[in-house]
């Protein structure tokens, strides 16, 4: 339905066109239980361009997930605006595909059923949906696990299914909420590599929330550093490292090391107004 209004992907040179995600003057206030209010996000402004991989980095409680949920349309802003593809966000939609730390798979569906779900929801017939789903399952390295239920899978496999399920319905934007936060260090690195591989092929717009500095630098074009209480953008740091990136080369690259050290110092700064 939006096909007639959004410009085709090929006609969008980066930089010159309107941003894919335009966040302006965005604030979120939560009501506290004692009747007071809590300012979670304070006047956030951020533009994300098509095909860009942007990480939001910050300590827990800085509102970075809330910001992502508002772009997803799951949480309503208290003030300010979010526009995606030039249109104000009024709710969730298949143009923005979420991937959550909690996986949030449908446990009564098999791997195939989960990945095909969004396609079926979009009106595709069963066999066509399943054929597409099988391809995606293969792309995320789970061929052979089509008939498994989520409870039979490890955390890393569940997150691969969740990524495939979201990619399946073809969102222009991926909204990833600490997707590797619940995984062990080894699986985490593997999935970072695979996500990068998938992204370098498709070049989807990605908004990626994390509290891990190395992950943000490894994956992103830009890192948005946030401070907490209230959540504000402290700095937006471009990551000028060549792509395609290989982890073993990057770890030895002084520019990478410099960025990691600088960003770590930035998020470790003690907040000045820490409550006693």
């Amino acid at each position: 339905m939006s096909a007639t209004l959004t410009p085709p992907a090929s006609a969008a040179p980066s930089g010159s066109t309107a941003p894919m995600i335009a966040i302006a003057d965005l604030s979120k206030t939560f009501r506290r239980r004692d009747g007071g209010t809590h300012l979670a996000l304070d006047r956030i402004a951020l533009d994300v361009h098509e095909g860009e991989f942007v990480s939001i980095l910050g300590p827990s409680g800085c509102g970075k997930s809330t910001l992502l949920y508002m772009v997803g349309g799951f949480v309503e802003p208290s003030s300010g605006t979010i526009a995606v593809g030039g249109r104000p966000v009024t709710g969730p939609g298949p143009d923005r595909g979420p991937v959550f730390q909690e996986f949030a798979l449908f446990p009564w569906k098999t791997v195939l059923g989960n990945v095909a779900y969004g396609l079926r929801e979009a009106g595709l017939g069963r066999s066509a949906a399943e054929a597409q789903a099988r391809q995606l399952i293969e792309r995320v390295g789970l061929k052979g696990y089509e008939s498994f239920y989520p409870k039979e899978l490890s955390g890393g496999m569940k997150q691969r299914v969740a990524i495939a399920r979201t990619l399946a319905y073809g969102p222009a934007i991926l909204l990833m909420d600490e997707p590797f936060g619940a995984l062990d260090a080894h699986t985490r690195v593997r999935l970072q590599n695979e996500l990068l591989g998938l992204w370098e092929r498709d070049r989807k717009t990605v908004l990626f929330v994390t509290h891990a500095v190395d992950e943000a630098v490894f994956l992103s074009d830009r890192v948005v550093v946030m401070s907490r209480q209230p959540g504000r953008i402290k700095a937006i740091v471009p990551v000028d490292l060549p792509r395609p990136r290989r982890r073993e080369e990057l770890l030895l690259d002084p520019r990478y090391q410099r960025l990691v050290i600088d960003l770590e110092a930035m998020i470790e700064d003690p907040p000045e107004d820490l409550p006693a």
Partner: protein
Amino acid sequence: MTAIVRRLPGLPPLLACLALLLAWQAFAHWAARGGVPDALSTVRELPLILGDRDSLGAIAESLRRMATGFAIALVVSVPLGLVMGRSRIAAALLDPLFMIAYPVPKAALMPLIMLWLGVGDASKLLVIVLGVSLPIIYHSAAGARGIEEKMLWSARAMGMGPVGRLTRVVLPAVLPEILVGCRTGIVLALITMITSEMIARQNGAGNILFSALDMAQYETVYAMILIVSALGIALDMLFEVLRARLTGWADDPHLIAAPPS
């Protein structure tokens, strides 16, 4: 010993039943006076009841009533529970009513209900429906409340509307917990079925049991208790088979029944 048990998993329960019958036999023989028939004469009574067309018809009538009551309760309680679990307004309105209704012994309402609906089928059905509804509502609501919110968000992102989310995400996600409620419901259906027939004697298994008690036919009383218990066990086992088939994808329902706080 463990090797034998592994090869014959039915052996220990069989031994336990035999031991119980033996203890019963000994108790009736040595300790008890009147009113306690021994195990052997009770077991001998079973084919007499089960071979009797009228008794069988009465038991079938009871089962039919129980099944009808259970089905009505299921159809009403699951949607009600899911809505209570998902809508803050529905919960605020209905939770207090539910809290009041929960501890009331439903069979105690039977005399009142008989005043409105008479001694026939309707009264008994209503008591069964009331008895079965509450655990199913409770488990449906608790399950729906504890559902992973991000699962619903994922469905919304795919473009699914509120009705679709309730029927195609919340319902299947909560099914394991609903079935835990149903299992309690089956036992309660059996209890309310017998008690309602005890209070409004007309027909059914409860009527046979309590009429026999009035006439001091204790073998029949005990045999009927055995039959009703066996029915309960059989229904529970059948239900467990069904539950395993429907929700084999889920984790242990007892883990789901008590979500982490």
